[in-house]
């Protein structure tokens, strides 16, 4: 097998892909016969590429370099050049791949990883077809991995999907949402469907509301060019958060087959109540961070960040109240929020059960009992906890909220595999469960479309601000507090 990484000398390869492949190698999970070929526009020797990869592993791998393991891994690393603008731009790469595969005795199965900007997806897959990389001959297999963002809106997502579909069969297309590769996200299904305690509670009869928070401490960093065009709604909600929502809210699948699970996730997306016009104004809060403090250090506001337009109205925070119009979740609000420059990096789903009646231990209106909350911590400190009320030991009946807490780190020891490790391994194994199918991507865009349109229509109106280091704007608090609830800080 050959893994061909377009954008092989880029940031994603450096930080995530090469360290993930190295860890899979250390774990003995890569196929014994493999080549990893980074592809870029500028020439680079294999040795230089190995040094680039080693630097990435040293800086970003969850494991340190092990010399013998590294040597074996590095021997499988190569670099090739490609010019996507030239009609025969992939010819040198094709020749290089043929030689590498021949020398290493590989079977010619290939995975093409498009770690490149979305604008290059279509030209790249067209070139792959034109250069007869796809479909492969002699029964060899070719798969493609596409990184988010898949499009800028529904139309562009459809165009990308259409272009890829002209070259690859849907079964060979792996659209990555790395959140789905996280251990805790995978555990949502296990938690729900491998324990008899939780699933019976996951419905409108017992659940008061659900919160999903994806908080980033970082600012826009080096992604200003992309982010200023995208904003939080496109960057986080349309993909990661809606996928998390689908995992929490989906019906039990009848099997673990990839398409069965993906069908159930799609059902949730299709059941989301459409927000448009004034509904958007009432249920969506967007905001931009201003100068503030993160961990005690002064940080600039979004408009002062390098690469951001001084009058930018791109939202760096968005909070939404959404409803799922199906039998299970009727009347249960889902509160979603994400933002940059929030106090800490944390992604968490919390399922808030209904309050007990205001009698017995919950009779005092000045000291209401905390409702039980199931919190699923996706990152960091992966795990989950269940908050329950307990009597404090002693002669008085005093109630205190306590936790039943599960932490991956201290329970299983060691570090969990990175999301990209799991996802790359699944592509190698041909398992698409944790990848987004075309219909799901387009359903998510379909839902987001009227919201984007309304926000565009309103321009600056309704764009709130929040100081960096706060949990968002006042309007974000109001969105939930107006319903008698409050955000649970991770």
């Amino acid at each position, binding site marked *: 097998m050959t893994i061909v990484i377009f954008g092989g000398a880029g940031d994603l390869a450096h930080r995530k892909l090469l360290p993930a492949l190295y860890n899979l190698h250390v774990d003995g999970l890569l196929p014994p016969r493999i080549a990893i070929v980074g592809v870029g526009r500028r020439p680079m020797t294999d040795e230089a590429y190995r040094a680039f990869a080693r630097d990435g592993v040293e800086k970003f791998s969850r494991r340190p370099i092990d010399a013998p393991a590294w040597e074996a891994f590095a021997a499988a690393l190569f670099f090739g050049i490609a010019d996507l603008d030239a009609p025969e731009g992939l010819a040198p790469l094709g020749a290089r791949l043929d030689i590498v595969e021949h020398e290493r005795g590989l079977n010619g199965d290939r995975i093409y990883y498009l770690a490149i900007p979305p604008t290059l997806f279509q030209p790249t897959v067209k070139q792959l077809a034109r250069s007869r990389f796809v479909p492969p001959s002699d029964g060899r297999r070719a798969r493609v991995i596409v990184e988010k963002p898949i499009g800028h809106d529904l139309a562009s997502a459809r165009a990308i999907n259409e272009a890829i579909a002209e070259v690859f069969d849907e079964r060979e297309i792996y659209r990555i949402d790395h959140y789905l590769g996280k251990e805790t996200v995978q555990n949502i299904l296990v938690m729900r469907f491998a324990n008899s305690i939780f699933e019976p509670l996951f419905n409108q009869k017992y659940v008061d509301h659900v919160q999903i928070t994806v908080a980033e401490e970082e600012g826009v960093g080096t992604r200003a060019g992309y982010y200023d065009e995208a904003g939080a709604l496109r960057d986080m909600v349309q993909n990661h958060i809606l996928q998390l929502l689908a995992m929490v809210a989906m019906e039990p699948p009848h099997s673990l087959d990839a398409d069965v699970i993906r069908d159930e996730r799609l059902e949730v997306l299709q059941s989301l109540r459409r927000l448009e016009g004034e509904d958007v104004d009432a249920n969506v809060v967007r905001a931009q961070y201003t100068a503030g403090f993160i961990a005690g*250090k002064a940080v600039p506001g979004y408009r002062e960040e390098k690469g951001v337009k001084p009058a930018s109205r791109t939202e760096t925070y968005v909070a939404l109240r959404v409803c799922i119009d199906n039998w299970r979740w009727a009347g249960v609000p889902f509160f979603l929020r994400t933002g940059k420059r929030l106090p800490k990096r944390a992604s968490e789903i919390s399922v808030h059960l209904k309050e007990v009646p205001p009698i017995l231990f919950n009779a005092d209106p000045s000291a209401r009992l905390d409702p039980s909350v199931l919190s699923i911590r996706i990152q*960091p400190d992966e795990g989950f906890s269940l908050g329950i009320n307990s009597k404090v030991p002693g002669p008085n009946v005093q109630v205190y*909220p306590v936790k039943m*807490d599960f932490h991956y*780190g*201290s329970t*299983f*020891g060691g570090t969990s595999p990175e999301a990209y490790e799991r996802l790359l391994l699944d592509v190698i194994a041909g398992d698409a469960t944790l990848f987004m199918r075309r219909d799901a991507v387009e359903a998510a865009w379909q839902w987001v479309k009227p919201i984007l349109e309304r926000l565009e229509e309103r321009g600056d109106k309704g764009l709130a601000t929040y100081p960096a*280091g706060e949990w968002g704007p006042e309007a974000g608090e109001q969105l939930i507090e107006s319903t008698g609830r409050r955000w649970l800080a991770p």
Partner: protein
Amino acid sequence: MAGAVATRTWRESAPDAIESDLAALWRELGHGEVKIARAVMSNLIVVRAPSDQRPALANVIAGLPLDEVGARHPSRTIVLEHCNRKALDTPFAAGVGIVTFGPPASRYGVEQIVVRSACPESSLLSMLRRLVRGDVPTSVWWTEDLSDGPPPFDPLLTIGRQILYDSRQWSDVARGLATILPLVDDPRVDLADLNWRRLAPLRRALVHARGPLKGDGWRGVAIEVDHAPGEAAIASLLTGWLRAERPGDPPPVATAASTQHDQQAIVTVKIADTTATLTAHAAEVAIPSAPPLVVAVPQESYADAIAAELRSLSPEVTLLAAMRALA
């Protein structure tokens, strides 16, 4: 026995690495043969004043019964030594540790984070928000003399649901009251005064002896409060309680520590012909022509008292009323 430390791990950390260093410590503990439950019932922010006597970061917690409190009320303990010096380049230094308690079959561990902060007060909240867990209550334990320093930082009032302090530490009761009174009606926080807890047996004994304060047994009587040296704050609290509960009656007269004071008495109150005394062991009410009424003082350690206050989630309305009466 609660409070006996089984193991202790500690490492110097960095502002950005507190969570990852704690996670690494937990992973290391997870490799051991003894399984350790991670215990966290609340966030406890412990505020210490900077001191030249404690140059080493690990010594910031010296002299505080943190282990004992942690064993009784396991909390993510964040010890904050804050000096508001804007000129310093580095925002703060940090260290993290895990202290475990209990026998091998039921061992539990508590996180301790020490932060030496030198950032502007306005940025303090951004630091604390990333350290507290949002799914448990947050209490602030002000370990310093509130009458001899700045009032609690506003960020603490924003993040904590409870401010715990000990008015017995006050070197100047009037100044201590002036500091704490603005917080009495602050909807963000509840107040918990360890000294108020000490007064509880005396209050119970008085109500038992003379009936509820709003009843006839207290109408129109003169009241005098006398206290031992260094116990002016508890006398003041007692006075506030008596005032709050008897609004139309003559206010109690508080006297300074008298030289004639019973050596064992913490505070003494004379109500007409009744004399009540609080000592370290009992609250005793002497009534003419009747045997004395005695309420024992619970023999709890300082850590016991702190843990008990941390476990209380209801506002202490009687304390707040007493404080208002002192305003």
